[in-house]
């Protein structure tokens, strides 16, 4: 896997979606691999490849049987600097990316997620979705893409991860051979965009024709490896992992007000959001479900949790880590992700980069009822949250004035 430390977090206003679009363009050919040749080579060697982009990173991966994996190195070395940006490829791929965005617009959750993040972050680029805003995509140019590529796609900004059955010394020689001659690339001065503390609850309503209304609450939360962050992972497990979790017991079992509810906390290099979401059954009110979520969160803040419940959450996190290491691709994902995001002086040296994974369980195990309650009180406050409602709104008027242009 090749990880680049660039994602929608690094984009300028008006050019959102560039990181993700660029990821698509990296399959469109290099000076050594004509269009289609990357997939062709992969499949002729019986392998698979794909890529993904998110807020903080862009990653490309290959899986091959262990006797032919080195093909992947050749491809990645070539497209790190020598991707060709043919204008006609750019034009047709723009339609593909717009279709990808439309799938999101037709989906049940994306519209609400986009608005909650955009509302919670007024300044930090987590404001914008990774796929970008449609208006920005429409005005993107091939030249913008190339400029962005030249800024970010260099060895200095990349991590190569190889997991599986290979000889390390031989692999290193090959890597040196393939990547060694590529210049390290410019030093990009990190932008220091800090989201100012939120001074009061924010609320947003999204109207969409839907048979099922939805609730999404986001609390500003600390970044990866922050001392408080581990307790938030424990809180997410207590709230929503398994049928014995708080949200399941309260909302599905007791109130019977939702089809599904969950709490998720992802690791990011900058402060992001701790999310609670629920799909509300017809006949129940969003406001009632919201209040029930706060009841459960208040219990955490009061320290109303047993030692057994805390132990269970730790066990779940530990087992999930073991299960996330079952196949080489998953291992590469974890190593690459943390090497890419757990960076900077802020992160304790023993947890920096991929070493985060070595210390994570110890830090999780150090969480106590008291520390979990303290962290819950610190972050799960009214002033710190953004609450989004997706409400059913049949198309009663041509209010948006814009019909689907169908042009693609």
């Amino acid at each position: 896997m090749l990880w680049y430390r660039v994602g929608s977090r690094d984009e300028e206003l008006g050019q959102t979606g560039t990181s993700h679009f660029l990821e698509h363009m990296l399959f469109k050919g290099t000076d050594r691999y004509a269009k289609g040749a990357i997939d062709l080579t992969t499949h002729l060697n019986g392998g698979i490849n794909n890529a993904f982009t998110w807020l903080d990173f862009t990653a490309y991966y290959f899986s091959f049987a262990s006797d032919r994996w080195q093909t992947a190195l050749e491809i990645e070395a070539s497209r790190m600097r020598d991707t060709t940006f043919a204008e006609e490829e750019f034009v047709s791929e723009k339609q593909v990316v717009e279709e990808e965005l439309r799938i999101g617009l037709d989906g049940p959750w994306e519209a609400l997620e986009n608005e909650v993040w955009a509302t919670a972050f007024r300044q930090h680029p987590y404001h914008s979705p990774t796929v970008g805003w449609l208006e920005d995509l429409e005005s993107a140019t091939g030249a913008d893409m190339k400029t962005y590529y030249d800024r970010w796609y260099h060895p200095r900004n990349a991590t190569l991860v190889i997991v599986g059955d290979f000889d390390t010394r031989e692999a290193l020689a090959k890597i040196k051979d393939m990547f060694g001659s590529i210049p390290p690339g410019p030093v990009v001065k990190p932008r220091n965009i800090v989201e100012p503390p939120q001074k009061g609850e924010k609320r947003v309503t999204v109207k969409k024709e839907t048979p099922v209304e939805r609730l999404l609450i986001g609390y500003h939360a600390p970044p990866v490896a922050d001392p408080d962050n581990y307790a938030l992972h424990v809180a997410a497990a207590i709230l929503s992992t398994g049928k014995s979790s708080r949200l399941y017991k309260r909302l599905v079992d007791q109130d019977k007000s939702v089809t599904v509810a969950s709490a998720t906390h992802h690791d990011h290099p900058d402060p992001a959001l701790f999310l609670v979401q629920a799909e509300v059954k017809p006949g129940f009110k969003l406001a009632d479900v919201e209040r029930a979520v706060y009841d459960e969160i208040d219990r955490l803040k009061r320290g109303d949790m047993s030692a057994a419940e805390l132990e269970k959450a730790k066990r779940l996190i530990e087992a999930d880590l073991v299960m996330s290491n079952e196949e080489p691709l998953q291992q590469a994902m974890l190593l690459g992700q943390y090497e890419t995001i757990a960076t900077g002086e802020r992160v304790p040296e023993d947890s920096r980069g991929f070493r985060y994974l070595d210390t994570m369980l110890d830090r999780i195990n150090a969480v106590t009822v008291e520390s979990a309650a303290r962290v819950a009180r610190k972050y799960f406050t009214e002033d710190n949250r953004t609450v989004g409602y997706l409400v059913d709104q049949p198309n009663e008027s041509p209010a948006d004035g814009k019909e689907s242009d169908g042009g693609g």
Partner: protein
Amino acid sequence: MAVSRKAGAVKLDVNRLVLSNGLVLLIAENHSTPLVSISVIARAGSRFEPDEKAGLASLAAELVEEGTTTRTSRQIAEAIDSSGGHLMTFGDYQSNRVALVSLSRDFNLGLEIAADLLMNAVFPEDKVRQQIDRRLAQLKSRLDVPRTQASDVFNETVFRGTPQHRPSVGYEKTVGALSRSDIEQFYRRYYVPNNTVLAIAGDVETSQTIERVESVLGGWQRASGFSSPDVPRPGLEAQAVEKHVTAPKEQVNVFIGHVGIERKNPDYHALLVMDMILGSSPGFTSRIPRILRDQQGLAYSTFANITSSAGVDPGRFVAYIGTAPGNLDRARAGLRGEIARIVEEPVSGEELDIAKSYLTGSFVLRFQKNAQVSEFMLDAEIYGLGFDYLEKYPDLIRAVTIEDVTRVTRKHIHPERLTTVVVGPVDETGRMISKQEML
């Protein structure tokens, strides 16, 4: 380690035995991680439920974890969650399932709970009511995904007259009318040892595992005179069928196809190669993704295949595209054109080579997790593939010729008898309409 891999071939040592009550037990050891997968199939599913009780099989499947004679729903959840394991109980078209992954140190606990659900589920009235109400809401929410809606309409048309025309989750009308006794009767009839296969893969020792299984499931009473109902077979349409469903969405979702094949069909491997050439490669080497997405930019998601739905009953041959409404004519013509072309013209030698290289080479990548090994063992048992199938598979693929592809394509793909379903901002004749017109 019993799972060994080298390029192109996977060898798997499977221990199969049948308990005296008829339960089939399959075990594959793999000590590379301290994990174990327990996967159970009761051969049932929505194919065995009558039209008026659509949704029954999957509800019964989900409800087995809501209480047994020895454990409450809460105790089951606490036990599983406290061990860090994950339990899933669900039903689909042809199976009712219990699946559990856990750390291997918790294997005994997991096995005991799985056995309890299989033998002793009690279906408490309040839990039945709760799950039915939840299902009714889920039925509404799943239609929020336009691709699902289009797929449902396609199945309703193509599989008319067979149980496969319904979604396994049922309809609001049928689910709302189900009772606790319907569910209990379904469970009593189909959750019996002589209709069940149990697969265990991972960090366990075979002889100890057999002992454990004998001790927790050996006393499960065989159902004498057990038989499965006959399921009507779907037939091809006599001619082309078109259906348009109006929905206020950004995209049109298009499904084109007809009835497909059973997994046991002898043409399966040649059709697998055909799928790879026509529309199922993961990237853009297949024709449909390459031409409609990579060259014409019509879609993010477009594909075609016949083998991926092949099961106990014939599945579906289907081509899909999701695209902006203005592209509908081009997209539909593109899919139909590629379907016609693969029937009319022989594929090229290069296409055949790519497809075969991909299928044989990537096969090893599909058995890296215990849950995947369990799934394979269940498939091998249900379809009679033989447990040496993993070793035979590369040769079965390599043997496919251009002539084979032409022959099986002409036999199983019928361009004149395609059903086309379009869901999106179109009227019933297929004309594109604006959002205002939909009011």
